[in-house]
Structures are given as structure tokens and as C-alpha cells.
């Protein structure tokens, strides 16, 4: 079972449909116990860092996520879900993130329109199972004004250029995170979910 964490932010329905495209068993849940019993978890999300963290705290989900990560349950963070994995964000000063990945979230530089909305390239700097069969410099759909910067540079697997080069694919252990929306990036985007299912179940999915 894959659990999409429902903390009240984000387009959960589209993420669910993308996973169901590969016939995955998917549930949307805000229950800590179900999260811990899952084979894989997805932390989705759109909106502001502070609001997202407050919702996770209100639903008492911080500890369950941390515990799942300790138990090496594969986790995929998407967009705001990627950012929440970090320690803090310039978007909401004083608010602690999940702190699962060391580093901070910063605002994209001024000069270009913000949010960064649209299709942009992901330059793969290192291979990772989550990017399996993805073409070099493929386009994905982005919608964000902030980006995460891990302290450990070797956690960066993909970068994207928007005024500056920022990390768009980040991974540590069994944690995978993408700044773009794979569920909105056409057939190449769907491959990210297929790859996640293969990481979780360790075998090829149908389709």
C-alpha cells in the first residue's frame, strides 16, 4: 500500500490517479498508524511552507513521518513536500520544517517572474533509481517560488536553471524528492511514479 499523506494541502487526487495509472494500491490518509504501515509514502503539497507545517503539526503527523523514515520506508516528496523535508524556509522564518534532510529553503532570485511556472529542464547530475529511464534535460512542470538547498551537495541528483541553478531532484537513503510536479508532467512525469513503485516493491510494475 502506498499512502499519500493528506494534511490538507495539495492536489492529492492527481497524485493518486498517477499512481493508479500503474495499478498501484493507493490510499489518501492523515492517520499516523496507516502511514507507518505503508510500503511507501508520498508527501505532496502546494502552498506555503508555514501553513503546510502547521497542518502537519495539527494532525500530529510529524512524528509518524520521522518514524517511517527511520524505518527506511521509501518516501517521495513532491514540490512543497520536498521543501517540508528540510529544516527551515525563508518563506516562513521561525517555523521548523521536518528536518529530515539537513539544509534550508530559499527564495528564487528576483529578476524573472515568480512563481516559476511552466515547463523547465531537469539536468541529471547523477544517476538515481527515481530518475531511471528519464531522458537527460527532459522538461517537467514546475510551480514554485522557493527552492531547497541541502547542506550535503552529494544529495543533489538533478538541477534546473531559472535565473540560478537550483536542486530539482534530491535524494538521501530511501528519501526521494522532486521540486516539479511529476503528476502534471505528461508521460515522462508518470515515469517518476513508476520508478517510485519499483523502488517500493522492488519489481517491475505493469504498464
Amino acid at each position: 500500500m502506498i499512502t499519500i499523506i493528506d494534511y490538507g494541502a495539495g492536489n492529492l487526487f492527481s497524485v493518486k490517479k498517477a499512481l493508479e495509472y500503474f495499478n498501484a494500491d493507493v490510499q489518501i490518509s492523515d492517520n499516523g498508524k496507516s502511514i507507518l504501515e505503508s510500503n511507501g509514502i508520498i508527501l505532496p503539497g502546494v502552498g506555503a511552507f508555514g501553513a503546510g507545517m502547521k497542518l502537519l503539526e495539527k494532525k500530529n503527523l510529524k512524528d509518524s513521518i520521522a518514524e517511517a523514515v527511520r524505518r527506511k520506508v521509501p518516501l517521495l516528496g513532491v514540490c512543497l513536500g520536498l521543501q517540508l523535508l528540510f529544516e527551515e524556509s525563508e518563506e516562513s522564518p521561525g517555523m521548523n520544517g521536518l528536518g529530515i534532510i539537513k539544509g534550508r529553503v530559499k527564495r528564487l532570485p528576483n529578476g524573472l517572474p515568480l512563481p516559476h511556472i511552466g515547463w523547465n529542464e531537469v539536468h541529471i547530475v547523477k544517476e538515481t533509481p527515481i530518475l531511471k529511464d528519464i531522458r537527460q534535460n527532459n522538461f517537467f512542470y514546475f510551480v514554485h517560488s522557493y527552492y531547497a538547498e541541502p547542506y550535503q551537495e552529494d544529495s543533489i541528483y538533478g538541477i534546473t536553471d531559472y535565473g540560478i541553478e537550483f536542486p530539482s531532484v534530491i535524494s538521501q537513503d530511501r528519501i526521494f524528492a522532486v521540486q516539479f510536479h511529476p503528476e502534471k508532467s505528461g508521460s515522462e512525469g508518470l515515469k517518476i511514479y513508476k520508478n517510485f513503485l519499483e523502488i517500493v516493491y522492488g519489481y517491475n510494475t505493469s504498464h
Partner: protein
Amino acid sequence: MLTKRIIPCLDVKDGRVVKGTHFIELRDAGDPVELAEYYDKEGADELVFLDITASIEKRKTIVELVMKTASRVFIPFTVGGGIGSVEEIREILRYGADKVSINTQAVMNPSLIEESAEIFGSQCIVVAIDAKRDPSIDGWRVYINGGTTPTELEAVSWAKEVERLGAGEILLTSIDTDGTQEGYDIELTRAVVEAVNIPVIASGGAGSLEHIRDVLKDGKASAALIASLLHYKKYTIREIKEYLKKEGIPIRL
């Protein structure tokens, strides 16, 4: 590099496409979801559904459309047309739409922009502005109710105001050029693009490949909304995108 977006607009009434039903390769060209899937395959970067249903069934048909589209189409899509409350926005986003576009209600009740941007995030709030050149205000006047009712607002200042209130994008339609197929209003588009720091989608007047190039290059728009040009099969999305790429515009192909 961030690419410029080509966005087909589908006019929907009572759950059916009302323009551009000439697609012989589709089983049911009046089915908005089938048409959406077709445009996705053709390389559309996003989709906009403009719902012009006036009946009391409106909300139900929109939700059905959103759910079906989100199950089968994996590119972003926006829903607009008569959306007026936070509750409606919540419902449309919950069932899989990425953005909603608000127009008349944004003018009537600007706090709707602020409130919905705060709850759902700026990225899903598109404010649609319909503007018409008006020498008496030395600029462009904002119209509401499908372009039929003039307001006191000037388009460039209204654009700045909606950005301040939290809009994530502006969908800018020129009433002067809409439906003419004689080209986008480059001057209006550029004036708005230069006044704000959020993406502007230009709409109204595409009749040739050059028109699209001009509004992206000279008008500096982030995206071009295209309706009749596609609906009447003058060009396919692929042809449009190949042309733009050849013209040196960053395009996803």
C-alpha cells in the same frame, strides 16, 4: 530554460465542447475530456476549460469534468467561468484541477483573490482580465460579465492590484482583438507584462503562426492561449510549436 507555453482553450457548456468539434480522429469530438487527451498528446503545455454553462447543474457538470480530466490527462489544467466563492474553488481544486481562473467576481469582490490565494496558494489563482482600449482613460478599460459590462478599472493598474492581492498568473484577453484572428494586442500585453512580476497568458486574436510568435517575443507573454486556430484545425499544436522553436523561442517539443 523555462519554455513559453501553448495553452488550448476549450469552451464547455453543459459538459460538452461548444467550439471546435471538427476532430474526425476523435470518437466523440464534443467530449471535452477526449479533446483534452488529444491536445495533451499533441504537446499542449496546459489546458484551460472555460465553462459557460448557465444552468443550476453547472457545479455538478464542472466537478464531473474535472474528475474525468484529472483521471486521464497528466498536464496542468485550469477551470474558469462564473467561479465566485472560496467553496467553489475548493471543490474544483480538490477534484484535480490545478488552477481556477476568476474574472467578474475578482472585480466585484477583490478580497476573493486574497482569501483564496492565502488558503490554496497563489499558484492556483489565475485572475482573468478582459480589456478594451479606451482613449478616455488613455489606456485599456476592464470589462466584466463576459466582456459586456464596462468597469471603472484600468487594465494595467488592475493587473498590479491583482498581483498585490496574491494572484499567481494573469490571463489577459483583448476584447478588441478577440475573435478577429488578426493578431494579439501586443501593446496591451507588453504593458501588463512590464507592470507585473507574475506570468501573463495572452489571449485573443491568434490567426497565424506569426501572431503567436509576436505576442511571445514582442508582447513578452509567458504563454499564449489559443482557441479558434486549433478548433478549426488551421494548425496543430505540433506545427505551432515547431514553428516557434525555429523562430528561436524556447519551446518544449
